[in-house]
């Protein structure tokens, strides 16, 4: 499993050269800052840092890029928890419980949970990667559209659990999101719902739509309040609470581990990183004894979402290093470093530079420890936003989000999308429709549509095709089990009290 010679060589490289270590802290800080501020993204961070990458050696460049991403993986949780703004699809599930915690004055604790879960998720996935990089790559090459379809369907089952007070409205919101998500050129080239607008050919711009539905609509509602969290005492920021969150994370080992395993497995699939947080959250909620506490500020929701999100990048790293295919944000960024040094990832790279692969993985483990150390004071500073009056937060955050969405799209399509979805989001809340269900539909629609079409084409419409795909069957069995087992458990819980042995 582990090539000990290559591992020794990797340790030698890292121990004898100081250059790769110099870039870790700046990388982490850039990643944190660029995701903690609404409107800024990793792609903007790259725009600043790209000119210096060719001057670094290949390993330093890789470590710098991964450090930026390690920072950003936790950085996205900060606006998600404090302002209900998921800066990227991978932070959507963090808002479900993180923001209610912030509103209840548990912002620093929630960020502590997020930091610890994110660090653990990343450490877990890199340890797995260190041991199983080659077997993971072998599995990755066998995964295709049928497996992706099942994973996507699994993600869509979350819509049912995000129903809010009315099941029918949850279904409507989810279905509406799914339809919105398929707008644009379909997998076979058919144009749908574009209204002749060129900007819609690639679909609805996701990030501005997310910010509009979630954040802007929430900010409109907050305009009648003075602060995000009421009461002077609950607006206090303390190291004690941050540490309480960090330590408290490990009181939920099952949630943490389940999220990390889900993330690592799903990260292998293309686009999997966007689903990992949702699926991890959904499974944590489904397997909980008290699922009704989720969505109301349950720390397990934050832990599951963050662990799933953080560990998904490790899975995608295996695909990049072993197959040369980027399946997530971090790996797409790393391709830039590969490209600038004229190196192509894939099986040849794995066999010729295994020491570099191990060095990157080992340095990521160190980065995780660095993130934990830098993250605590960073949370302390970032949490201070709860002390700022809402009347200052609303215009600043909204204009930053609008400017950011303009920069993302290089056109007015971004700001217009944000504006339309902000009004839609507010109306949905007003009539008690769960916005989160629409978001899940919007995020998964293209993946589901593409995977469904390709599976249809490959199978010729015969369900027996799935019998030839052992991984698909295994995933299907897991999906069915995840739906049926909680239902059986709930039924048992209802039946047990009336059994004679339970009557004392």
């Amino acid at each position, binding site marked *: 499993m582990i090539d000990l010679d290559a591992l020794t060589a990797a340790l030698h490289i890292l121990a004898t050269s100081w250059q790769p270590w110099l870039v870790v802290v700046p990388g982490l800080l850039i990643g944190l800052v660029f995701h903690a501020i609404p409107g800024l993204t990793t792609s*903007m961070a790259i725009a*600043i840092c790209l000119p210096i990458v060719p001057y670094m050696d290949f390993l330093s460049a890789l470590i710098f890029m991964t450090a930026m991403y390690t920072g950003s993986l936790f950085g996205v949780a900060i606006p998600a928890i404090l302002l209900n703004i998921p800066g990227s699809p991978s932070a959507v599930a963090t808002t479900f419980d993180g923001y209610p915690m912030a509103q209840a004055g548990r912002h620093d604790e929630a960020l502590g949970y997020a930091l610890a879960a994110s660090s653990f998720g990343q450490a877990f996935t890199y340890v797995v990667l260190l041991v199983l990089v080659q077997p993971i790559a072998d599995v990755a090459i066998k995964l295709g559209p049928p497996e992706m379809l099942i994973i996507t369907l699994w993600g869509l089952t979350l819509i049912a659990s995000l129903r809010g007070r*009315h099941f029918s409205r949850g279904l409507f919101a989810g279905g509406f999101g799914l339809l919105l998500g398929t707008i644009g050129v379909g997998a076979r080239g058919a144009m*749908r719902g574009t209204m002749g607008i060129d900007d819609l050919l690639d679909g609805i711009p996701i990030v501005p739509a997310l910010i509009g539905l979630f954040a802007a609509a929430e900010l409109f509602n907050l*305009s009648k309040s003075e602060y995000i969290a009421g009461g002077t005492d609950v607006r206090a920021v303390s190291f004690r609470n941050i540490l309480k969150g960090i330590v408290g994370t490990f009181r939920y080992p099952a949630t943490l581990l389940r999220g990390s395993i889900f993330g690592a497995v799903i990260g292998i699939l293309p686009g999997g990183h966007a689903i990992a947080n949702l699926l991890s959250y959904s499974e944590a909620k489904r397997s909980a004894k008290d699922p009704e506490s989720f969505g109301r500020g349950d720390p397990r929701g934050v832990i599951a979402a963050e662990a799933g999100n953080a560990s998904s990048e490790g899975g995608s790293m295996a695909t990049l290093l072993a197959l040369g295919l980027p399946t997530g944000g971090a790996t797409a960024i790393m391709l830039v470093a590969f490209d600038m040094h004229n190196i192509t990832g894939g099986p040849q790279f794995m066999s010729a530079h295994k020491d570099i692969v191990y060095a990157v993985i080992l340095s990521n483990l160190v980065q995780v420890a660095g993130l934990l150390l830098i993250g605590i004071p960073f949370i302390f500073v970032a949490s201070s936003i709860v002390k700022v009056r*809402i009347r200052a937060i609303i215009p600043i955050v909204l204009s930053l989000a609008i400017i950011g969405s303009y*920069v993302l799209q290089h056109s007015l399509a971004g700001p217009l999308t944000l504006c339309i979805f902000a009004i839609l989001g507010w109306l949905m809340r007003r009539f008690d429709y769960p916005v989160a269900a629409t978001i899940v539909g919007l995020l998964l629609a293209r993946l589901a549509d593409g995977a469904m*079409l390709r599976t*249809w*084409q490959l199978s010729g419409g015969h369900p027996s095709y799935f019998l030839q795909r052992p991984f698909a069957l295994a995933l299907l069995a897991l999906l069915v089990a995840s739906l049926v087992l909680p239902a059986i458990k709930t039924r048992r819980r209802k039946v047990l009290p009336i059994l004679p042995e339970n009557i004392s």
Partner: protein
Amino acid sequence: MQFTTRRARITVDVPHIAFISTLAAFCAWYLYDARLNSADFADLLLIQPIAIGVFLVYFYIVCNAVTVERHDVAAPAALPERERIERLAAIRIFGSMALVTLYVVSLNWIGFDVATFCYVAASLLLLGERRWWVVVLMPVLFCGICVLLFNELLQMPLPLSLVSVP
């Protein structure tokens, strides 16, 4: 909207029905547009079943938006103080929406610098800020930082009208 019969009071949630009907109409148009562009089964694998499901749920929701109550159930009385707070909240919410819409629409006409200044200042005023120096200084500082950050540092130029970065 309420109707009264001899035995019951019928309440129809008109704004809710109008809202969901708009969304359902959009879904209907979307399905029509998708079928118009390609009626091939493979292109409609996801869209058609989902759209049909959405319509079924729509009819169920509309049916439930009409409630029938017996006459002896008293209608909740509105409190004057609560009404006043709700009116103020509505002014702020709809005002914020109008300002964001104006801001987005005006970006390309008057430039990011002027539009952002006007939006931030107007929002501060709408949300209750009355100190004139905050209303003026905060937008100026914010615009300056944005222009420097995006146009200079990130090299992602925003269309400006007043501020010129050398």
